[in-house]
């Protein structure tokens, strides 16, 4: 897809975005667009402005200057009453899942449709479909607190998708998860993306995401430091295999370091 094409079919446009907190620039002239159905990683160390940028996109905050365009919603022309309708076009997931702990998995997903006054059969149909999609149909009557982190995040993803959003925003969705669950979530996000939903995922873990052949926007000190497409040819499982290999290598290295450290601390064993 050429640059021009992407511009025309973008679901998100961010133009000369500035955000200033107490005379500190959290975001400084950020420009990019996310095309329809595109998958984009937003990486950068913590404090680089990733979360702030996402908040601007779901318009929890407005830019100090510049403009954010999401579908037909333009940040400079938003009225307070428009925000709920924007949120229905944008799915959002967080590191801490943000589930309602006073209702079961099914109701947590259904809430997004109940608030728009959807018909009961439509709700049942959609929620059942999503439960299967995220692999939690058998846990639909459980309460969130009985689920593992990965399962909770999958519930959150299902809820985010319930109203057919054009884009899914994910703010460190794997931040609280063990590597295996993180991989599952990433795999799920790829699957959702292959169904046509654009995904913008923020993460601080650069090494984790660079092997998938996706576009990466690298944010540093509130500026776009790098915006490139990683090149990886191959299937998703190949990519995940690479990640797993990297991880295993890292584990081996960790183990080696630990062993060496132990041997330094206990010279008796060393002398044997």
């Amino acid at each position, binding site marked *: 897809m050429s640059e021009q094409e992407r511009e025309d079919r973008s679901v998100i446009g961010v133009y000369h975005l500035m955000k200033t907190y107490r005379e500190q620039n959290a975001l400084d002239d950020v420009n990019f667009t996310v095309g329809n159905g595109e998958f984009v990683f937003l990486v950068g160390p913590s404090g680089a402005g990733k979360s702030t940028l996402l908040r601007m996109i779901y318009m929890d905050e407005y830019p100090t200057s510049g403009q954010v365009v999401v579908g037909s919603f333009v940040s400079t022309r938003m009225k307070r009453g428009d925000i709920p309708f924007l949120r229905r076009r944008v799915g959002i997931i967080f590191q801490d899942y943000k589930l309602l702990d006073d209702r079961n998995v099914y109701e947590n997903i259904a809430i997004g449709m109940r*608030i728009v006054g959807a018909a009961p059969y439509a709700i049942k149909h959609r929620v059942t479909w999503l439960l299967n999609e995220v692999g939690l149909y058998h846990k639909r009557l459980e309460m969130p607190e009985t689920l593992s982190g990965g399962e909770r995040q999958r519930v959150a993803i299902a809820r985010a998708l319930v109203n057919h959003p054009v884009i899914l925003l994910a703010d460190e969705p794997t931040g609280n998860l063990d590597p295996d669950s993180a991989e599952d979530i990433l795999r799920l996000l790829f699957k959702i993306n292959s169904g046509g939903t654009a995904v913008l995922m923020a993460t601080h873990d650069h090494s984790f995401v660079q092997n998938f052949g996706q576009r990466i926007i690298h944010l540093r000190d509130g500026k776009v430091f790098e915006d490139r497409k990683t090149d990886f040819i191959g299937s998703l499982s190949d990519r995940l295999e690479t990640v797993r290999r990297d991880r295993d290598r890292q584990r081996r290295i960790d183990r080696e370091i630990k062993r060496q450290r132990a041997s330094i601390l206990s010279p008796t064993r060393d002398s044997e």
Partner: protein
Amino acid sequence: MMRRWLYIFDEAFRTVRRHKGLTSISVIIMSLSLLMLAVFLLATDNVLRLVGQAQDEMKMYVYLDDSNSQDEIERLHGLILSQDEVSTVTFVSREEALADFRDQLGPDADMLSALRTNPLPNSFWVTPRNDYKNRDAMVKLAARIEEMKGVDEVRYGREFLDKFASILAGIYTVDVVVGFIVILSAVFIIANAVRLTVISRRKTIEILKLVGATNPFIVAPFIIEGAVQGGFAAILSLLLLRVITEISSNIISDITFFSLEKSLIFAATCVVIGAIGSFMALRRYLEMR
């Protein structure tokens, strides 16, 4: 439309069910402060009733000259009855008055046999209309009747009326001041109790906003919940008050509970206060986008 209301009610009662502890604490807090208000209102209600009773009993005694003929008495009867303020006029002959007096004395009635003649005059008992049962109107009416030919004297307990009026003014002043304080503090306590439940559900509000709920949808369940809490608190406080009046009726014999109508008005007011309190507490959280 129906579906939305179902959702809203479902939400309201889900939170009540889910947060039983917090809900019952806030209902108890509310009902105690409402009890304070109810005690005050009941006291006012009873005082007003007693004042009403005292006013009902207001009468004027018109004593006539002994020289009046039957015709003149009838003329006076008609004249007094024609006054705007007067409701009824009853003639009490001197013989009837003596008989009454004898009855009042009871066992001491023997004393009366010492009398050769009946010392009591003929008289009228005059009852004013309800609108005129107050000091100023009574004074004016008495003055006018006293002017009439054949009237000896008019008695209506002027000293008592003077005292009664000043006591009444005192009671009203105290009532208004105390009432103001009690109502204010009840509303304040209730608003805080409701705020407590709202704060405990900040996260729910945040999530509902994230998934795109409009403000009315977020607010409605809370308002219903506040109203339900207000209603329960009202019922609880009325029950408590009922128990208190039953117990204290041994000491203060002349105390009556609210009529059904007044109880319902009280409960309805509490429902409204609960709903408004909820809304006020929520407003802060709705400011955030």
